[in-house]
């Protein structure tokens, strides 16, 4: 099932990062269950038409953060602890919030201004999602 990951060319992030994120997402929504087997590095490389070294990197990084477990000679499996992905996103959240605080200080924004911006961004996201659902219903 992992062989149908979709990599976006216009995404400016490195390919291995995209692959890592999509694997984490699949774990988060439950399409990949803890303990289930992942395709071998070569299999995935061939299926996605991506170099072996990219898949290796993705698997390596996923293992470092604890999302997957690799057994030498046996391949990789999803880690038994499902909350690990969640922990990763929490970490990202903390980093981004600190970045926002830094930028806010540079631009001289007040707390209220920062909060307003955050609200606007969340609203935009919600509207986009609703709009997308409405479009789906029409079709």
């Amino acid at each position, binding site marked *: 099932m992992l062989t149908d990951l979709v990599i976006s060319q216009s995404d400016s992030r490195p390919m291995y990062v995209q692959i890592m994120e999509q694997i984490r997402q699949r774990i988060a929504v439950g399409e990949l269950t803890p303990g289930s087997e992942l395709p071998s590095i070569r299999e995935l490389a061939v299926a996605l038409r*991506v170099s072996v*070294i990219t898949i290796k990197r993705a698997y390596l990084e996923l293992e470092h953060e604890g999302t997957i477990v690799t057994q030498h000679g046996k391949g990789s499996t999803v880690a038994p602890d499902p909350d690990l992905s969640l922990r990763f996103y929490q970490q990202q959240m903390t980093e981004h919030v600190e970045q926002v605080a830094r930028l806010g200080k540079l631009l001289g924004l007040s707390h209220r201004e920062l909060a307003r911006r955050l609200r606007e961004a969340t609203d935009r996201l919600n509207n986009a999602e609703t709009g997308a659902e409405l479009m789906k219903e029409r079709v």
Partner: protein
Amino acid sequence: MSELAVHFEGVTKQYPLFTLDHIDLALPAGCVMGFIGANGAGKSTTIRILMGLVHQDRGAVHVLGHAMPREQVAAKLDIGFVSEDTRLYRAATLAWHMEFIRSVFPRWDQAYAQQLLRRFDLRPEQKIKGLSHGQRVKAALLLALARRPRLLVLDEPTTGLDPVARREVLGELMAVLADEERTILFSSHNTLDVEQISDRIVFIDRGRIMDADDKDVFLDRWRRLRLVMPPDAAVPRLPGIVEVGGSPRLPVLTTNHFDTAMVSLCQETGATVQAVDCMTLEEIFLASVQNRREGQPA
């Protein structure tokens, strides 16, 4: 440690107007190596020396364990070579070519050949002269792939192909790698393809290898730093900066040895680091060439 499918040591070849100078290459089996270089940089000469079609003046060449050009016949039995130079006979049909290749190479896989005919949408009874450029490229690839070579050497395999054909070809090339012992070396102008499927990348310019490394090392090492300078401040001078562009207040620094410490170093000089951009392989290549030709230390 896997065996080296291709090994060049200090290979040099002199022509009246061009010299291929001290080429060192090490391509392990099971790997994909992408060659990027401008026209006339030496890609084709290197590949010809690899195939034993041209003899090097100095240096050792080993392909699949065979010394070239002395043992070229043994090596070529396991190599599939497709290039702009190798054209098929226009008056003959694809079927005739398939039969000809089948009679020469014992590992010809007829079932796989039939599969490729379908996937590439080729009809064997067609004469080569009636095929479009893209179809001819696919035909040549079919002949190279169906004999199950241990090493595939490709000079511009996707040049001139439409996006659909390109995807098919890349897919088939990657399928070769499902077998761990098979290796691919290809040169291309299409840096997107190289970026996508290569494990190792080599930059060649004016007969010399500019840079050679694992693909992700290239992509990790190179960055563009977009800075906002306070008025009258000088652009920070950091080691590893290859190019300084942009305007005095909004400089863009290109570096080939990125380290997160650079960001803090920039900030210490009073600059704001607005963005740290990754670079595509094409941008990296162009920056390398520019840097080298201007004689700046890299």
